[in-house]
């Protein structure tokens, strides 16, 4: 498989993953391009690997974490979320509100924790595959995910974390 064939087949999926990781379409495009440039440098080796997409995903995660580390010093935390009831809202509106609340809660997580959740709940990778992608142990993934979920539960309102 050449590089163009791979990107034609999997480029959109990679862009979607970048979008979920970054939450911003412009940064997602940059992240996808940067990851593809990384693998293009050694494409012959990448396409010779048993799972080229896993290689590209790893490049993307590494880039994402690296970018976030560099930008961390200039980021300002948003104010604490203010709990309030949404009982009176219609179900659909409540779903939207819950997702919005979740997005704000996700933005307060460490990049590594967010990446674990994205790989687990969006990319549907099991913990072993996530560990391989991020270059850490399976135990670390489990504990990171557990702490991340606990942080979300702590941050979000009861209605928000129940999705209503």
């Amino acid at each position: 498989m050449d590089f163009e064939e791979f990107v034609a087949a999997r480029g959109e999926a990679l862009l979607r993953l970048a979008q979920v990781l970054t939450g911003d379409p412009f940064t997602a495009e940059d992240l996808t391009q940067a990851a593809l440039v990384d693998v293009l440098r050694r494409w012959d080796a990448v396409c010779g690997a048993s799972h080229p997409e896993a290689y590209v995903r790893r490049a993307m995660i590494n880039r994402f974490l690296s970018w976030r580390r560099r930008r961390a010093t200039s980021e300002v935390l948003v104010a604490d979320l203010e709990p309030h009831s949404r009982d009176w809202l219609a179900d659909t509106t409540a779903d939207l509100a819950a997702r919005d609340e979740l997005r704000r809660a996700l933005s307060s997580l460490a990049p590594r924790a967010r990446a674990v959740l994205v790989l687990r709940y969006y990319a549907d990778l099991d913990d072993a595959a996530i560990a391989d992608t991020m270059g850490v142990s399976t135990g670390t993934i489990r504990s990171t995910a557990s702490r991340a979920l606990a942080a979300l539960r702590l941050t979000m309102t009861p209605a928000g974390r129940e999705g209503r």
Partner: protein
Amino acid sequence: MNEPLEQLLRATFREDATRMHSAGDLASSARARLGKQRRRRWQIVGSGLAVMAVAGGIGIASAVNDSGGAAHPPAASATPTTPEPTEPEPTGPEPDLVGTEWQLIQFASSGQTTTIPADIDSVLRFDGKGGFSAHACNYTGGSADLDDQRVVLDMGYSTAMFCSGLEGEVQRVVFGTIGSGPLDWDIERHRLVLRAASGDTLVYRVRASIYPDPSARTLTAGERGRFQYRVAIADTDSGPRSAVILDVRAGPGTGWNGGGSMLATPIGSGAGAEALLFSELDDEYIVTGVAPAGTVRIVHHDPVSGADTELARYPVDGEDWSVFAGFVPSHTNSSTISAYDAGGDVVATWSRDR
């Protein structure tokens, strides 16, 4: 595992995924971006050895045995080369529109004529297979419909880096002109003139080198089947270290896509896969890297094909290490490269796992 929060995470991520921009031509953009990075990374100083475009089309410094028997790219010194001129003399037969590297030297827009400084390298090329590529700060390419008077270029992709100053103005005029519709073209005195219906005009000369970085010092270059390649050495802005450059493309007029560049790190110094450049050609590979001091022989071994291939070495002025390069029938994850000293002992090895 399917508690509400986790369901909400899945739903939210799925929704976020739909908010992306169009995928566009990611592959072409990545290739263009890689090319741009290479040019920006290596700040070249000093003039290069000579590979030049010759009248009547593009010239290659040296040609390799196309029969497939030769494992060694020939040394540049083994083949006559011509010093790179500052201005190609307009002598000899006119160059072909197709297959020539055209470099912008002047444009006229809205009645104003602008001469392009030498450090702005805006190139246009046609591959003769219905395609074109160009760059003017950003990169573009797509289909080219040619006849003997007119050319219609369809910009199928372009990159979108921010460009300012004269470089940005050159891009605005070039992209605007070539994307404006049918262009009249003419070649006279080795100058290609493209004229739009608006009267805007682009004037190109034959670029002095076909290679992406014209000032890198060519160690070996040539043709191999339909491919063109070059192995070169360049100074860098990373202190005293040099860079090894491998340029590969699938024929005249196509973009330079294969290969890559790396700091001149000798094999065996722990850099692993980063210490080797290689590119797949149709049914073989070209590999290049840096042999440590004391190397007199260097052999590529591929256990899959069982082939042992001796690679050529190219000395580098002022250095005790040398650059090796050659064609091998197969290069896989299990391939190895061994450097031997005069006593026949292995002084360094390369393998992907290092």
